[in-house]
Every structure is written in structure tokens, then in C-alpha cells.
């Protein structure tokens, strides 16, 4: 395609340069009813899954329809949202912190027309473009990362598994039938971009093999001390090796100490470790960030490894679905997954879900590991020694 200049002059890059202007101010984009009643809301109700109404002290109402979004989307999809917003909402819409999209209108008749319009839109393959849901005690969108779409350190994909899991849990997106909201998040490596460490169910890509060392380029493309200090277990040390009769600076990896976190590859491109058979997903459960009743919790590893099975990740989706269903059946109202597992005891969690407990789940990282072992005689006998 021919080059089309935006007016930027590469010969004078600093000329007419605008910088440090920050984002647009949020209130430029508020729907009139939100602007008018800002800070004056009285109460809200969830009318049905995906549909909320907020009532202001002035009596004004705003109806919100929340729709699932794939997060990764084209400009045509965004234009379609804008078309909907133009048609029903005076050109306004918003995205939530879990990447759902919300359309807002100020009366009930408009809401019904909007709902009907949204429900009628499908992709050629049959998927809903704007599935309505994600409110109350159900499963809303999955916070996720880049995966094989764009990142260089993933151990699994993001968009693929998220689509597979949401397809399996779709009924909980469009209903509010769980004891409490259930947050699922996915990160494609242990960097844990996003929310896996504090979600009811966290899915995180892991490696199971140490990095391969490219001695021929390592000293040229890496700052060796950074690679050494990137290792949480001190498994990497600087060393020299002989390569085609030449001494080169490089690193050595103590494979008995390496737990395949991939941090050294993040710092040093000469230490790749992704592996088709080795890589997979660890499943964590029981995290939350709200302060409701119990304090915020980290999620804990309960399944050390499920294999990558593109494109539908059947073992992963089956395991997640099972956890959701067992939690749904057993937990009390308002109990988040972590609250439930801690009340019944983790040995009961493993017994009820039928997840085989393995030694991989026992913490062995530094002094704090000790506090995760049981220093008490209080436990329940379970049938679970498998």
C-alpha cells in the first residue's frame, strides 16, 4: 500500500509533537442521565441476569445491559457496538473492569428494545455477538492475557482456553444460580498478568522443562547478571564455555534447582523454554479481592498440571466445570469458593471434587512454605488417599 503520511515529519521528529496530555476526561463521555445524577444514586436492583437498574434520589432511572465481550476484538466489532449505542443509547457505552460491554438507557421501553436487538446478533459461526449476562452470583467474563496471539513467554494460549471455558460455563453467565459470584481468570505464564492470583478459579500456563541455553549468542544479547538475578531459586550462575575453539561467557542452569518459571527467558532471549509436550496449565482456586465477610485471599494450586489440548482444552474445561458444579452444590449462600473450601477444609475440597491430591501442591518455596503445612491435629478423615 502506498505510504500515507499523518503529517508527522521524520526529519524533524520533535516538531509539532504533542505529549503528556493523558487520557480524555471520563465525564466527556457520560450519558446525560449519569452526568445529571452523578454521586446521587439511591439504590440499584438486578432485574434479570445481565440487566441492572440504578435509581437516583431525583427518581431518575438508568437501565444497564451488560454483554459478554471477547476482549480481543476487531474495529468492525467495535463499530457494531457503536451502531447499537447510536441506535439505542444516544451514542454512549462503557466497558467494565472484566471487559464486558455495558449499554445504558433511561427508560424501560428502550431497555426492552435494546435487549431484543442485542440478543438477535450472532456471528456467522453461530456464537452470540452480545450475550447478555455477567451480573450477580454467576460467572462473568474471564480476565485473560495475550497467549499465543502476541506474547513471547506464554506456556499456553489465552483466547482459545477462555472461549472453551466460557462455552462450557455459558449457562452460569446468563444466570445467577451460584452461591456467590465466581471469578475465573487466566494468565498464559507465571508472570500472572491479570487476576489469577486472586480469583475463585485461576488458570495459569506453566512449563515443565528447564530453558535451553543458546551459548553462541547469550553473551551478546543478554546482560548476564540480570539473568542470574532473575532466578528465584538461584539456579543460574555465570560461567564460561568453549564454543568452536573459542571461550565465551555464558550461564549454567542447575536443572535440579530450576522450577521452569521462565523468568530468565524474560530477561535473556538466549534462554527459551517453551515446549509443546512440557507446557500446560495449573489450576488454582479460592482467591478473592473483596473484603466481604472474609479478608481477601490468594488462590491456591489444586491441579498442578493439565496438558495443552488446543483448540478446545477438554481436560481443562472438564476440570473447571467440575469444580464449579461441586462448589455450586455444596457452598452456602454468599460463600465464595475460597470461603467454602476453608470452611469445609481442603481435604474435603479434594474429596468432594475428586481431584487427585499430589505432592506438587505442597508448598516448598522458602520459609513461608512452612506456614502452609498443618501444625494441628485438626483434620477430617477422607476417602481421598489416591
Amino acid at each position, binding site marked *: 500500500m502506498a505510504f500515507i503520511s499523518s503529517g508527522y515529519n521524520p526529519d524533524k521528529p*520533535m516538531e509539532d509533537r504533542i505529549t503528556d496530555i493523558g487520557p480524555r476526561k471520563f465525564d466527556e463521555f457520560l450519558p446525560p442521565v449519569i452526568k445529571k445524577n452523578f454521586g446521587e444514586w439511591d439504590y440499584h436492583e438486578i432485574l434479570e441476569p445481565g440487566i441492572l437498574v440504578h435509581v437516583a434520589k431525583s427518581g431518575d432511572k438508568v437501565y444497564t445491559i451488560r454483554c459478554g465481550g471477547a476482549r480481543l476484538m476487531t474495529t468492525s466489532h467495535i463499530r457494531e457496538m457503536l451502531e447499537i449505542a447510536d441506535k439505542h443509547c444516544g451514542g454512549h457505552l462503557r466497558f467494565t473492569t472484566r471487559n464486558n460491554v455495558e449499554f445504558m438507557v433511561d427508560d424501560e421501553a428502550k431497555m426492552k428494545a435494546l435487549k431484543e436487538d442485542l440478543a438477535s446478533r450472532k456471528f456467522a459461526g453461530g456464537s452470540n455477538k452480545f450475550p447478555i449476562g455477567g451480573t450477580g452470583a454467576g460467572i462473568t467474563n474471564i480476565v485473560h492475557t495475550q497467549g499465543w496471539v502476541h506474547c513471547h513467554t506464554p506456556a499456553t494460549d489465552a483466547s482459545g482456553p477462555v472461549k472453551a471455558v466460557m462455552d462450557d460455563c455459558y449457562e452460569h453467565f446468563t444466570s445467577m444460580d451460584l452461591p456467590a459470584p465466581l471469578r475465573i481468570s487466566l494468565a498464559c505464564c507465571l508472570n500472572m498478568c491479570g487476576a489469577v492470583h486472586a480469583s475463585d478459579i485461576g488458570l495459569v500456563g506453566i512449563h515443565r522443562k528447564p530453558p535451553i541455553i543458546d551459548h553462541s549468542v547469550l553473551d*551478546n*544479547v543478554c*546482560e*548476564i547478571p540480570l539473568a542470574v538475578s532473575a532466578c528465584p531459586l538461584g539456579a543460574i550462575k555465570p560461567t564460561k564455555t568453549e564454543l568452536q575453539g573459542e571461550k565465551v561467557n555464558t550461564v549454567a542452569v542447575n536443572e535440579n534447582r530450576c522450577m521452569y518459571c521462565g523468568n530468565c527467558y*524474560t*530477561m535473556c*532471549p538466549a534462554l527459551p523454554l517453551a515446549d509443546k509436550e512440557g507446557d500446560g496449565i495449573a489450576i488454582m482456586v479460592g482467591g478473592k479481592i473483596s473484603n466481604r465477610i472474609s479478608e481477601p485471599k490468594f488462590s491456591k494450586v489444586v491441579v498442578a498440571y493439565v496438558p495443552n489440548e488446543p483448540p478446545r482444552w477438554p481436560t481443562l474445561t472438564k476440570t473447571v466445570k467440575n469444580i464449579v458444579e461441586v462448589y455450586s452444590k455444596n457452598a452456602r449462600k454468599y460463600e465464595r469458593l475460597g470461603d467454602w473450601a476453608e470452611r469445609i477444609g481442603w481435604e474435603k475440597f479434594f474429596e468432594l471434587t475428586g481431584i487427585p491430591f499430589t505432592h506438587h501442591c505442597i508448598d516448598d518455596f522458602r520459609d513461608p512454605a512452612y506456614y502452609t503445612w498443618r501444625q494441628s491435629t485438626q483434620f477430617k478423615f477422607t476417602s481421598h488417599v489416591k
Partner: protein
Amino acid sequence: MATVEYAGKSFEVDEDGFLQRFEDWCPEWVDYVKESEGIKELTEGHQKVIDFLQDYYKKNGIAPMVRILSKVTGYKLKQIYELFPSGPGKGACKMAGLPKPTGCV
């Protein structure tokens, strides 16, 4: 890997234009890169930053932290950006022949 020919020298570079080998660095490299980094004329200030980055890299095997660069050269981050519009990593380190910065950048 691409090879750049400039002023009778050849440099092996990656897709971001960083030198593949620190040893390949020579004053011609700076001359070659400066335009793509938005630098018209090389001043004493530029040279001071480049010299310090190279000394530090040879001595420590890593690029200095921004705070160290500022403290030793006496240039505040703002002044470093005035010298190198792309910043200390993409601009100064590239011109000094240091490896490409890594991590979550």
C-alpha cells in the same frame, strides 16, 4: 538478522536496530543510528552518556539503572530525553551498542 553497511563498516543488527555484538561498536555506528533516533548533531552531552553506558556495561555486564545514569552523568531524566528523544533504553543504549533492554518494557 539484518546487516547494515555504513561508512565502509558492516553491522549485524536485530529487527529493532540494536547491535548484535557489543564488540562491533565503533564511532561510525553512532553516526549511523543518530538520525533514526531523532538526533541531528552529536554533542558533548550525548558522548558523555554513551561513554558512561559503555564503561558501566564493560565493568558490570549490565546497563545502569536510570537513577545511576542520572547520578553519574548529572543529567536528570528530562535532560536525557532532550538528548535522546527515544529515552535512555531505546535511544542511548542502542547508540552505545549495548544489548536490547529486556523484561516487561
